[in-house]
């Protein structure tokens, strides 16, 4: 069923009793051309683009829980392409362009809202760094604009501009950035992939790999039995090390907990996404009115899917330093997701060192915004065997060869990105 104003009106008149499930909850078949492990945004987007761009529809997405129940449901929904390094910016700008056409492509309301993101700067050195980053963005076809203090004040008069320690001097604005509805992204991709014949198999955890005599991967062993596959792609954010270990692969990744928070619903107050340049705090306002915000990872290896109190305190201190007006708002909920922190802070989309296995991993803080391009590029790699031009730098061997994509300049420290 295509969604349209007409179908909505017809359903409204018949008491909304005619809606059917948006996608098929499939049973596993014996074999597929490609099996994607992980039914989050990246896995489902990969399945969608495999069928749409490459005509490969004998595809299964296997998910240990329910689709979108991992990091796709645990992020802060921000989309942006404000990166500085050549290996990153072309990829994230491609993702931004896909976001801009996503709703038409999927016929699904993913609530893409381009309200802009402003990264505040608090020193001359930081202004120079942002000017350079903005220029890099423009050279890659993205939009960027340096705002002075008055321009930021017009946009967000509630900020603490004259903070003694961190006065706000201006900001780097990307107007096309914004937010999208995370669940709708998952469901939209699932619906589009399912309509092309992709099997989405839930409650099906991968517990091993099938291998032939040469050691090549020929399928997956799951809690619902073996599934043979021509190729297997991993998109299991947060648990990449564990699944790769089943194929005897060690990755340059540590798993860490990243927390996010939402306040009680407030009237519209924050225009877009605002990030604090002197601490680590970022905030936007959801359509329901809650302030959605977050900051640093907890800082030690974790698979706990919840955070601890020191970071809650740190994030709230950052918020109070930036916008004291939020001091009276109460936190409604907080949650933690387990993220793959790579040693340079950038992702991996590449062949694994074992034949038949492909990796989509290491998204650190920034997996959600990458969802469309990640799926597009991973599908390209799986279908053609060659990396997509915008993701060619996300190689697994860059750590050995020295071609790191160290956006933050922090070195080999998974706990610093």
């Amino acid at each position, binding site marked *: 069923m295509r969604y349209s104003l007409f179908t909505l009106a017809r359903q409204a008149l018949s008491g909304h009793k005619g809606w059917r499930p948006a996608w098929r909850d499939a049973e596993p078949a014996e074999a597929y051309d490609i099996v994607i492990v992980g039914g989050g945004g990246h896995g489902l987007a990969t399945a969608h683009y495999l069928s749409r761009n490459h005509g490969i529809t004998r595809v299964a997405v296997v998910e240990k829980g329910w689709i979108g129940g991992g990091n796709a449901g645990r992020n802060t929904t921000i989309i942006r392409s404000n990166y500085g390094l050549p290996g990153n910016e072309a990829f994230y700008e491609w993702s931004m362009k896909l976001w801009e056409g996503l709703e038409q492509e999927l016929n699904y309301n993913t609530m893409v809202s381009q309200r802009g993101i402003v990264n505040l700067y608090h020193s001359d050195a930081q202004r120079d760094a942002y000017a350079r980053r903005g220029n890099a963005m423009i050279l890659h076809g993205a939009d960027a604009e340096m705002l002075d203090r008055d321009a930021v004040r017009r946009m967000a008069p509630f900020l603490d501009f004259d903070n003694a320690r961190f006065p706000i001097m201006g900001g780097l604005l990307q107007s096309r950035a914004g937010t999208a509805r995370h669940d709708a992204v998952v469901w939209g991709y699932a619906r589009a992939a399912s309509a092309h014949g992709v099997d989405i198999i839930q409650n099906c955890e991968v517990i091993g790999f099938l291998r032939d005599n040469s050691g090549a991967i020929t399928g997956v062993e799951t809690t619902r039995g073996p599934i043979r596959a021509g190729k297997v792609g991993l998109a299991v954010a947060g*648990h990449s*090390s*564990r699944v790769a*270990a089943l194929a005897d692969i*060690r*990755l*340059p*990744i*540590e*798993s860490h907990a990243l927390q996010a928070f939402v306040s009680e619903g407030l009237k519209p107050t924050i225009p877009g996404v605002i990030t604090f340049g002197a601490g680590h705090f970022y905030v936007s306002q959801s359509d329901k009115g809650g302030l959605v915000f977050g900051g640093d990872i907890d*800082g*030690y*290896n*974790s*698979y*706990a899917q919840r955070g*601890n109190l*020191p970071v809650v305190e740190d994030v709230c201190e950052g918020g109070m330093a930036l916008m004291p007006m939020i001091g009276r708002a109460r936190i409604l909920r907080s949650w933690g997701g387990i993220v793959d922190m790579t*040693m340079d802070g950038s992702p991996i989309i590449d062949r694994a060192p074992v034949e038949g296995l492909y990796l989509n991993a290491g998204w650190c803080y920034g997996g959600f915004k990458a969802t469309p391009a990640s799926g597009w590029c991973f599908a390209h790699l799986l279908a053609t065997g060659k990396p997509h031009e915008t993701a060619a730098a996300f190689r697994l061997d860059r*750590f*050995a060869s020295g071609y790191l994509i160290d956006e933050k300049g922090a070195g*080999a420290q*998974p*706990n610093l990105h």
Partner: protein
Amino acid sequence: MRIPCPYCGERNSGEFVYRGDAAPMRPEGAEGLFDYVYLRENPAGPLREHWYHAQGCRNWIEVTRDTRNHVISGAILAREARR
């Protein structure tokens, strides 16, 4: 989370600096340096890891912590762990 420092006793984790998996050993030459710098076991379960008691006795300690639930099953001075 509270960390049982062998020298100071149980203290708030905020007093410590985290340095990660204690298992990798720095090799003498270039051989194995890549593994040491970049590759990690990253287990979901007990992990031996280095913490530095920066705001206490300034000892490096080796803590065994379960990464699934942060339950700490032991802590010894790192120099003793190396013996």
